């Protein structure tokens, strides 16, 4: 199920949380939203889910304006930034709530997942640990056979084992059912493994939104060595993110215009000139370095 957001702007009392965000999540994509705390990720997700109304702009899920049409939500699974529950509700009450709410509920899938996690059914939901909450959410959201999964920082605060389990099950779901996934995360490495599209938000603005494949193709490093010094202007192009020089060897991180720059450099008779792949982390460090310190959080393992 496709998501199309157009010019989303959200202003709260004093603050503008989102500024003209437009993005498209293609059908079947695993779309990662990344950005430091306070960038507006949760606000964006709440607007996509129809929980908040944008000040300007629109968002369509599967072609429907989600704020008006509640029925589309029958095919959407949602994991909020923190778990909310009814007091006095037990795990089995949550099962019942979801089972009876969603028409496409699959008892087989539910049983399958239930066996995997083996959660105590008579436990009060408020007594569950964060890890168990996540497991409960997985069971509930996957058993309803969603076409779209919207996950707000689902792995935050989880220990590595549960985190890994979560991502495994998510990938299994995507592989088996082609579910579209929209996931916001703090962890770049996680994103790189799991997502095929990415969007970066910072202070309410969308910095980048593209498929990982395109990104990795466009943003690469040129490693070259020259006998003589290189004139500075050659490297002062807008597409050049970063230049490191050790002796005669230059390491040039390029965001745009890779081939043109390479052609230009070849005119200076390099001793060697290679293209090197660069990790997402490096792209981030160089690209976001200018945008502010906040991005150090994303580079946590």
């Amino acid at each position, binding site marked *: 199920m496709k998501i199309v957001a157009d010019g989303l702007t959200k202003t709260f009392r004093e603050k503008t949380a989102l500024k003209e965000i437009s993005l498209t999540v293609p059908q079947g994509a*695993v779309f990662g939203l990344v950005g430091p705390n306070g960038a507006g990720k949760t606000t964006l997700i709440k607007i996509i889910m129809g929980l908040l109304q944008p000040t300007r702009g629109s968002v369509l899920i599967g072609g429907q304006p989600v704020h008006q049409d509640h029925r589309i939500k029958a095919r959407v699974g949602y994991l909020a930034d923190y778990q909310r529950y009814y007091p006095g509700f037990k795990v089995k009450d949550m099962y019942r709530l979801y089972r009876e709410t969603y028409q496409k509920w699959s008892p087989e899938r539910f049983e399958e997942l239930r066996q995997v996690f083996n959660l105590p059914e008579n436990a009060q939901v408020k007594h569950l640990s964060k890890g168990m909450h996540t497991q409960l959410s997985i069971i509930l959201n996957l058993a309803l056979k969603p076409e779209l999964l919207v996950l707000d920082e689902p792995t935050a605060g989880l220990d590595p084992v549960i985190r*890994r389990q979560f*991502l*495994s*099950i*998510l*990938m*299994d779901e*995507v*592989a*088996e059912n082609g579910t579209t996934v929209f996931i916001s995360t703090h962890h770049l*490495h996680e994103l*790189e*493994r*799991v*997502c*095929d599209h990415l969007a970066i938000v910072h202070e309410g603005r969308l910095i980048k939104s593209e498929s990982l494949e395109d990104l*990795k193709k466009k943003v690469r490093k040129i490693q070259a060595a020259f006998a003589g010094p290189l004139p500075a202007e050659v490297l002062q192009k807008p597409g050049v993110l970063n230049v490191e020089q050790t002796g005669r060897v230059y390491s040039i991180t390029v965001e745009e215009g890779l081939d043109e720059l390479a052609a230009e450099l070849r005119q200076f008779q390099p001793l060697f000139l*290679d293209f*090197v*792949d*660069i*990790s997402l*982390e*490096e792209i981030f460090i160089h690209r976001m370095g200018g945008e502010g310190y906040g991005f150090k959080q994303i580079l946590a393992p």
Partner: protein
Amino acid sequence: MFHIDQRSSTPIYQQLVQEVKAAILRGVLLPGDRLPSVRELASRLAINPNTIQKSYQELERQKVIETLRGKGTFVCLDYQVREDEERMDLFQNSLRKILVEAHYLGLNQERILALVSKQLEELGIGEGTR
């Protein structure tokens, strides 16, 4: 079975290609062995299935593995270890870099060749191995 280093700058799909090949080389995977399905591997490694798919496609292109409809993906029985011009260029480039590095480590030709022999021995690449 396959180890993916997410901090490496090598794209994940490429790492997986190399891992599969290394596994075959080491004898962990034998010709005719069934590989995990895209779904299984995506789940096991927590990696996007498209990436796995890409790796498998590349491996198929290189005729290392083949997919039999309805049965699964298998290591080719008659995998031809052969030269491929494009990969040869890449390989020679990598080799050159390593040799430059070796030189600056203070290794002479004799030492380099000794190290190479040792590695070949450990990997089981003998004189006649194909």
